[in-house]
Every structure is written in structure tokens, then in C-alpha cells.
């Protein structure tokens, strides 16, 4: 097992071989997944992820090794692989990260408690059964219901050569219900999937039946809807998961990893107006119990609330240690990784646009022909070109200032830096929603969020 003696040895050996910075990331994650399908518990599975990531930095170059074998031999092999690269280093360059003493930050007590484990499995199964029954009761068109219960307790310890030794636990729960409505020739789906950085009390406070009904009603409604027309017109994006527009259109482009590589349309824009003056946005890792919250990031840096945009002006980027050093900024506690299998890079946490003064009704009333995107699915972005896309899972056509009819099959596309400037209304009520974000360092839980807002023109891809 990895012990203090071995850790000391690894640090000494790595330094001896020329590393400027050494970091050990130790992770043990307990997960459980229950799946209810076809009216029965189809799968009950779970287990333990365990491993260690060893990161060496020399002249700004990263050498990362990870293993699930924490025996002395396994760790020494891991180090040997990483340091074998050090021997091929660029000679004659100054150390990029000089070792400096730092206080030890002890975030939470040791002793990896697993509160989820105290809950009887039967109670968890009851939640799934309840959701299944509620969804099926909602409408006779509901032909299938698939529900998942997910829990995860992650224990991490981060030790580095600057004297930081941080450890703590992160407990997350998520409940997902997907309803399928069918008319015999067509299927449509509706999904609800709330999550939180909490233990089982999260599930106890959920309105399970309400979630299931919402998913089922959306599936049924979309079955009755027509295909969305294509075009370039105003789009009102509702609060909550609508925030995926900011996440994709702007957030990824503000991660220092992309800025460092000159692979973002927001490079060299600090202090510039990059959005409508109505837009102020933050990335906040400190919100209590929120899905994307962390006490400390995956480099052991305490998280913070980072003001990204203030009345349209870019204030800073989201930085990890390397990015901060490279850009001459401070780390914002934004280094994240899915697991020990990934080296950390700058990522979003809970990212949202702050409330303005409009109401949803006003926005609709001010729209002659447009789309009201009430519920959105996932999306993606190319940070280098700014081109993004995301799916509308529940949409309504607006005509003459009123909602005319539900529409389906729409996708919204655009360029982030252009769309941000075309926001002409920001609502007065903030909502957050949960998602999983995939990028260089794997999949991490994030909140997206915003009040309802209107973009004056967007390309809507549809089939009509």
C-alpha cells in the first residue's frame, strides 16, 4: 500500500531526476447504479474505483502516470515510466514551477465515511418503482419507462511538492427518468435527471412523482408536435438547462487550457467587451451542495466564485495551476479530472449567467416570429472557431407575441462570440440544472444555469 515512506521516496526520486513539481492524486470511489426497466429492477451493480495518478512537471511539460496497482512495485514502475521521459527533457531551460513551501490545507477529516451505504437497498429500489408507476399513469401513450438511481462517494487526497496535502470526500446522487411515448409508428422521449452534491437526503427531498410526470408529459407532448421550421429568427431560451448555451458558446472558450493553446476565440480578449452589456456571468465552485461544487479542486486548490464576465466585459479565465502560470493569472481552483486516470486541466464547475430584469412573458410578447426553447439537450463546441450547437428537447413556435404550438427536432447553432452579443433580454429568475461535461480530462459533473433570455437571431435547424 502507498504509505508516507513510499510517498517521500517518490518525491525524492522525482526531484533527483529533475522534476520541478511533483503531485500524487489518490482516489477511491464507491459507486452504485440501479436500473428499473420494463417494470422490474433490471440491473443492480456497483463497485470501487481505486487508483493513483502521479504528475511530474518539468519546464512546463507534463509527465503523467497512473495505475490501479498501489503496491510498492506498482508505484515504482509508475514513477520509472514517468521519469524515463524526464531523461529526454529539453536541456537548458529554466524551471517553470519552482518548488515553494505552502501550508498544508486539511479540508475535511480523514476516515472515508460512506453515508449511502447505510441506506437499505430496498428504499433505493422503491424510488425507481415509484417513478416508473407515476410516468406510466400520466398518459396511455407512455410505452416504456427507464429509470436510474446513481450514487457516488469519491475520496481524494492530493499531495504535492509544494507542501500541499489535502484530502476530502465528495458525495453525489443523481436520479434519471426517461419516458417513451409511442403512437404505434413513432416514438418520442422525455427525460428528467436532477442531481446534487449530497448524500441520500437528496433523494428524500426529490418530488419523484413530479419528475416522472414531467418526463412523461414532455414525451407525450412531443409525440403530438410538428417538426420545427428552419430559419434564422429570435430564440427565447428558458432558465435552468438553457444555460448550456453559455456553457458551450462561451464557457469552454474561457478555460485556460484552450487559451494557452491559442485555440479559443476569446484569446487576448481580457478587458474587452465580448457580450451584450446585459450579460454578467460567473463560474462558482463554492455553492453549497450543488452538482458542480467542490471544496478544493483536483490539484488541491480551494475553489472560489469566479466572475468571468461583468456587464459584457471579459474579466478573467478559468485557470488551473499550469494555465495560471502560463497566462500570468492566479489559479481559480478550476482544475478538474474525471478520475485518477486523467491529468487535471481547467474546467467549469457551476457556470451561469446572472439575472437581469425581464420576464419570460415580456420576452414572448416582444417576439413576432420565434422559437421558445423550454427544454434543451446536450451540445458541443469547437472553441477555436466558436461554433456551437445544442438540441431543443421541448420547443414552442411563437407567432405574434404568443405561443402558437409545440415543435420538435430543432437544433440551435451559432458562433459563441456572435450569439453573446445578440442577447437582448435577460430574465429575472435564475435556474440551475445538472449535466455531465466531457473534455480533455474526462467527464465531470457541472451545473449550467441562467435566467430565461432572448437571442435576437439564431440559426434554427429543423425539418419543416
Amino acid at each position: 500500500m502507498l504509505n508516507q515512506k513510499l510517498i517521500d521516496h517518490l518525491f525524492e526520486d522525482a526531484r533527483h531526476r529533475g522534476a520541478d513539481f511533483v503531485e500524487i492524486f489518490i482516489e477511491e470511489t464507491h459507486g452504485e447504479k440501479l436500473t428499473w426497466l420494463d417494470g422490474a429492477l433490471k440491473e443492480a451493480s456497483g463497485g470501487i474505483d481505486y487508483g493513483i495518478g502521479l504528475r511530474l512537471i518539468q519546464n512546463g511539460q507534463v509527465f503523467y502516470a497512473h495505475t490501479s496497482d498501489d503496491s510498492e512495485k506498482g508505484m515504482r514502475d509508475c514513477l520509472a515510466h514517468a521519469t524515463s521521459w524526464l531523461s529526454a527533457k529539453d536541456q537548458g531551460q529554466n524551471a517553470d514551477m519552482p518548488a515553494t513551501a505552502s501550508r498544508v490545507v486539511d479540508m475535511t477529516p480523514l476516515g472515508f465515511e460512506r453515508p449511502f451505504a447505510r441506506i437499505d437497498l430496498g428504499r433505493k429500489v422503491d424510488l425507481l418503482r415509484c417513478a416508473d408507476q407515476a410516468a406510466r399513469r400520466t398518459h396511455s401513450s407512455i410505452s416504456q419507462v427507464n429509470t436510474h438511481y446513481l450514487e457516488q462517494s469519491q475520496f481524494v487526497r492530493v499531495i504535492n511538492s509544494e507542501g500541499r496535502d489535502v484530502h476530502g470526500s465528495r458525495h453525489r446522487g443523481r436520479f434519471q427518468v426517461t419516458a417513451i411515448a409511442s403512437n404505434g409508428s413513432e416514438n418520442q422521449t422525455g427525460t428528467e435527471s436532477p442531481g446534487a452534491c449530497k448524500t441520500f437526503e437528496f433523494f428524500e427531498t426529490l418530488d419523484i412523482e413530479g419528475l416522472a410526470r414531467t418526463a412523461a408529459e414532455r414525451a407525450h407532448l412531443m409525440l403530438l408536435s410538428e417538426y420545427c421550421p428552419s430559419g434564422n429568427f429570435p430564440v427565447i431560451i428558458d432558465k435552468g438547462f438553457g444555460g448550456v448555451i453559455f456553457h458551450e458558446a462561451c464557457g469552454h472558450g474561457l478555460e485556460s487550457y484552450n487559451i494557452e493553446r491559442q485555440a479559443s476565440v476569446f484569446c487576448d480578449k481580457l478587458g474587452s467587451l465580448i457580450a451584450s452589456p446585459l450579460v454578467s456571468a460567473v463560474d462558482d465552485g463554492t455553492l453549497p451542495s450543488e452538482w458542480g461544487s467542490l471544496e478544493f479542486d483536483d490539484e488541491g486548490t480551494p475553489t472560489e466564485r469566479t466572475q468571468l464576465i461583468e456587464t459584457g466585459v471579459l474579466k478573467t479565465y478559468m485557470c488551473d495551476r499550469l494555465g495560471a502560470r502560463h497566462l500570468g493569472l492566479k489559479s481559480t481552483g478550476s482544475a478538474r479530472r474525471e478520475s485518477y486516470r486523467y491529468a487535471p486541466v481547467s474546467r467549469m464547475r457551476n457556470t451561469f449567467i446572472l439575472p437581469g430584469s425581464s420576464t419570460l412573458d415580456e420576452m414572448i410578447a416582444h417576439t413576432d416570429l420565434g422559437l421558445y426553447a423550454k427544454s434543451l439537450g446536450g451540445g458541443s463546441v469547437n472553441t477555436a472557431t466558436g461554433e456551437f450547437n445544442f438540441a431543443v428537447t421541448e420547443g414552442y413556435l411563437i407567432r405574434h407575441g404568443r405561443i402558437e404550438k409545440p415543435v420538435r427536432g430543432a437544433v440551435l447553432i451559432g458562433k459563441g462570440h456572435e450569439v453573446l452579443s445578440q442577447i437582448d433580454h435577460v430574465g429575472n429568475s435564475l435556474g440551475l440544472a445538472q449535466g455531465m461535461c466531457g473534455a480533455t480530462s474526462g467527464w465531470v459533473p457541472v451545473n449550467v444555469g441562467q435566467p430565461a433570455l432572448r437571442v435576437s437571431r439564431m440559426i434554427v435547424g429543423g425539418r419543416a
Partner: protein
Amino acid sequence: MIPQRLFEFLESLKPESTCDASELTYFSSTTDTVRVFEGRMDQVSFAHTEGLGIKVWLGDAWGYAYTESMNHEAFQKAFTLAVAHAGIASPDPEDRPISAPHRGAASNPTHSPIALEPPEMLTQALHLEAQTRAAHPAIYNVTDTTLSQCHEDFAILNTLGHSVCFSQFTQGAAVSALAKSGNQIINPWREGFATHAGIPIQDMVDWLAREVALRLRPARVVAGARTVIFHPVAARQILKRFEPVFSGESVLHHTTLLEGKLDQLIASPRVNLVDDPQNGPVPRSVDGDGLPTSRLTLIDNGRLINFFHNDYTARCLKATANARAVRGLKSPRGISSSHLILEPGELSLRELMRETGSGILIMDLAGASASPITGDFSYSALGHVFENGEITGFASGFTIAGNFLELLKNITQVGCDLEFEVPSLWGACGMPPIVVENINVATD
């Protein structure tokens, strides 16, 4: 060869009276990755991980648990958890351990002759980046140049005497370039994987050079129902997204639009969709259940004649099993193809464009608005506009939309240039270019 300690783990379960049968699945991988940026090493990583999945049966119910700690204490904890899961699971009499004893090892050699030592990986990655940077004067940044190689081992064994293992080795590279002309920025990328001749670096660079030259000529697409040609990369993106419609699991749970359509014409007569595990970039003679694989035709001249089945879905649906099981450490039961391909036709991509006359050659797709349950898709797209068979310019910022089943019916031509994706443990999808009518194109 199956590690001896797995048999010891399994043996340790036999005195247990808490379950009726047990099955172990073992995963091991060793990966080297090199990423370079601006002429120097940016990040290298080495990984060695193992994991063990334990599935137990209590009567007709089963439970599953896994661990990445390969010691007896962790194994016993996982076993206890698996038994607890089986204790709450609904009875599922068709899910049984593989009972016919089948022993053997299969597939690729443990150490591939194309495996590279780390310094050579770095040399090749730097070469790829430098060549890409020099490929066209408009290229101003090569944002990501990565070379990786991975050796993976998989084993499955159970208390009924079934034990099979196989190994795979894959090696691939990816490069992404930024080029600009005026305000126009383009970002072509290319992946390649190694054959006996190594990684096709020069082919990747030549492809990028051609694409940069072509993409710097802006054009506009015309909205409406259009005939488009899907480049193999884009065609693969669509086929892979909709592969679940061919899964026996989807039939079982009534989530495929193809349910009830066996022996019906569901695609153009030009469509022959086959899966051949033993012929392709990563040949494999057994599936994730450890059962022998063979070539399977899904669509024959447009007619649906098979679904993919693992041992479980075949039993449930009283269908013929065809050994398409896949496993993951966290997913004990799944179905997937190995080398799923649309059988190539006669014409090259250039000939397809000439024959089509005018249209859009779709090069890449992005977006999550594509559902195997509804069949509907709506993607953000980019591609070349062509007229009279010749490329006249490049467009992005438009969408394409349709329905997968309609797309299959609207395929009017299949090209001859079959391209596989970079393979993974369970296989690689390959597609030639296809010509499809009546795709809804939207733009500003």
C-alpha cells in the same frame, strides 16, 4: 493467457453457499500517450490499470460488482456487494452463466511488432506536428497532436468451467490544425491508426493539406431538401449513433423503430450492412460472453435479416444467438458490433460527385440531437459545396436533419473508399462515402 490469480479468486468462491454460480470478467490495459505542442513535448502519460467484475446468481436473480483493487480483501468486498445486489434484483431466468464449457485464448499477439518505444513515439509525434505545420502556409496553429498505443487484455471465466481470454493492441494518432484566411478560421482534424506499415503520418498530412486548401474558399449552402454525399467520417458518425436500433436489447425493451420489421425492406437495395469480427483492424474470434464470433449480415440488399444478439437477448427473444456481447468493468451486459461496415460499391468519391452533379459533401457532424429511439436527427454540419462534380467552396454554420430510417431508404449510391475509425477493444466501424437524397438543410 488468463492470469492464475483469477482462477484462485474463482476457486475461493466455491466453498461459498451464498450463490449458485459466479462469473469473473477481467480487464487490463497498458497505455502510452504522447502529446506535442509547438515543437516540443507537451504531455506524456503512461497508464496501467486492472479491474475485476464479479457477477453472481442467486436462483434466477443476478447481481454485479467490480473492483480495481486486485487483492483478496477488495475481491471479497466486491463479492459481498454483488450478492447483495442479486438479493434485491428481479428474477430474470433467461440471464444465465455460459454453461457449455468453452476454453481458449483468441486473437492478437501479446506484443505487437508495431509497438513503439516511448522515444520513437515522441519522434513520430513531433514529425507529425512539424509536417502538419508545414503542410499549408495558412496553418497558424497545430492545437493537438497526439500519438497513443494501448495493449488490452480481457478474460471471462465462471464456476461452470467456461474460460476465455483475448488481447488487443491498437496504435493511433490524431492531429488538429487551425488555418485562417482573413476572418475565416477553419479547424480540420484527422485521425489515423497503425497497420503493419505503422501510423500513416504522410497520408494524414497530405489529407490535411488538401482540406486546408479546399476549406479556405468560402461558399454558401442552399437551404431545402438536398442531395448530399456523406464523407466516410460523417457517415460513420451517423451509423454509430444509430447502431442501437439494430440491437436485440432495443428489440427486447421496445425501443427500436425496427421492431417487427425483420424480413422487410427497410433500406435502399444498395444497402448491405455487415459485421465481421474476424476481418478488420482488430480481428477477434470471441465476443464478450466468450462465445465464437462469425460474420453476420444485418441488411441484405435493403432487407433487414438480423439483429445483434448476445446470449441473453437471444434467449429472451427466442432468436438465434450471434455472439455480439460486449462487457465493460461497469457494464456487465451489453451488445455491440465489431467491424460494422456498409459494403462498398464501385465508384470513388470523385466519381460519386461527378454522377451527383451538384450538392454538399458533408465532412463532419456535431451535435447531440440524434435519437436511436425516435430515429430523428438534426446535426450541425460542415462540408464542401460541389457543382458539376467539382468542389467550388466550403461551408459551415448549417444544419442537416432527417430520420435514420428515411436516410437508409434514400441512399442512392455507395462509394468504394471504405474507411475505418481508430479501433478500440471491441472493434471499429467502417464506412464508404454514401449519396443520400432528400436531406433537409437549414442555414441563415
